[in-house]
């Protein structure tokens, strides 16, 4: 591993100042489950590594604030997956967090880190999109709330500005009842990177939100307000055109070795239909 300068700011202001000063030469270190691999294989060669884990404002915490559940940037997947409020209000996020890597990985990897890497295959991204989550960023110009859907650009690229640091992920507590589920395809049952990752949520006013990843440069959110998908009595023929519109933006890379585009697109449809059924069932079960 090449050497670098290591900084361990204690306050958010310090971290922002460091980020502003070093720009792209700096990398933030949260859980390290992605960054340390890149430091070792040389695909990341930052001059400065800024460890954010001592920043008071980022310390692991999940709390409610003004109708939102706020998950601090230092919160790891294990705690997201096991948190009672997450499981109750955002079960698909808990499901997604619970399948990110192994126990060892989930004990280090943060939800914010998963979002900031902006991997198209990020397992938590679809559920965050379905739940209308926002990224809270602190920067030289103050605090911004960026809807997750406006945050992802492509793998490794987000709409964060220079000097901005993500402090939390916020999820609006649902005003309406919703049934939701996270599903994925992998090459084995043990932990693996997803070749399709998908979340479907159906709410009590028959709006269906479907988000998916690993089939294009960034995760995608699609919304059906026609009520057709949410209707348990709707026929497959009625649903098909809606699904097709929803999946029209999927464009899996032919370069991937994990699955062919053909298979991914087929599985997107299989998972979409299965997830919809489960979401409807869960809504019905309350």
């Amino acid at each position, binding site marked *: *591993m*090449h*050497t*670098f*300068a*290591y*900084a*361990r*700011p*204690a306050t958010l202001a*310090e*971290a922002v100042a*460091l980020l502003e000063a070093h720009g792209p030469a700096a990398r933030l*270190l949260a859980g*390290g*489950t992605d960054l*340390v*691999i890149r*430091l*070792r294989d040389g695909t990341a060669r930052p001059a*400065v*590594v800024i*460890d954010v*884990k001592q920043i008071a404002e980022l310390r692991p915490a999940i709390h409610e604030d003004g109708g939102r559940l706020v998950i601090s940037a230092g919160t790891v997947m*294990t705690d997201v997956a096991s948190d009672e409020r997450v499981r109750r209000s955002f079960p698909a996020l808990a499901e997604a967090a619970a399948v990110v*890597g*192994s*126990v*060892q*990985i989930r*004990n*280090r990897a943060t939800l914010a880190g998963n979002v900031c890497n902006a991997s198209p295959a990020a397992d938590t991204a679809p559920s965050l999109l379905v739940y209308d989550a926002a990224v809270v960023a602190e920067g030289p110009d103050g605090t911004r709330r960026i809807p997750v859907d406006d945050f992802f650009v492509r793998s490794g690229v987000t709409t964060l500005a220079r000097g901005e640091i993500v402090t939390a992920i916020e999820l609006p507590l649902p005003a309406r009842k919703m049934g939701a589920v996270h599903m994925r395809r992998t090459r084995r049952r*043990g*932990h693996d990177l997803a070749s399709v990752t998908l979340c479907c949520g159906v709410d009590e006013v028959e709006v269906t939100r479907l988000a998916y990843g690993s089939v294009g440069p960034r995760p995608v959110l699609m919304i059906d307000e026609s009520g057709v998908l949410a209707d348990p009595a709707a026929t497959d023929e009625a649903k098909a055109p809606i699904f097709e519109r929803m999946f029209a933006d999927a464009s899996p890379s032919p370069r991937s070795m994990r699955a062919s585009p053909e298979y991914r697109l087929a599985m997107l449809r299989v998972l979409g239909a299965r997830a919809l059924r489960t979401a409807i069932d869960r809504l019905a079960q309350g």
Partner: protein
Amino acid sequence: MSEMIQTVLIELTVNGRRRALDVAVNHTLLDVLRDDLELTGTKECCLVGECGACTVSLDGRIVDSCLVLAVEADRAQVTTVEGLAVDGHVSPLQQAFLDKGAVQCGFCIPGQLVAAHALLAENPHPTVPEIQEGLAGNLCRCGCYQQITEAVLATAEEAAR
């Protein structure tokens, strides 16, 4: 303070013993355990957090020590396989690994044991799927998974008596 530094004096407690040492910022906890502290029970294999051979407990939670910079372990409590025996006697889980035939070549076993200890600490009565899920981050190429699961189950049952 946040000055730029390339070696850092860290203090950590490893298997109950306090250690203070200078570590390079680009060295991992695994490097420091094996090379500086000469605790070679923790093994090095994939270096990408996939195999679990380097599993240690960090402040009560298992991690892949190949993905933790040593400096991140400053002020932490670390338990490695060398810290599992009690008063010079192997733990019931270590003994169960031997009794149930969970050990072939043994190279993955330190990681398996640290992970299994943590699993039982958190969930004293795990089911087979819970054990399999909990230990999925520890690869065993000899294929002792069944016997490892049996050893964890047997230890849990014995503790419940």
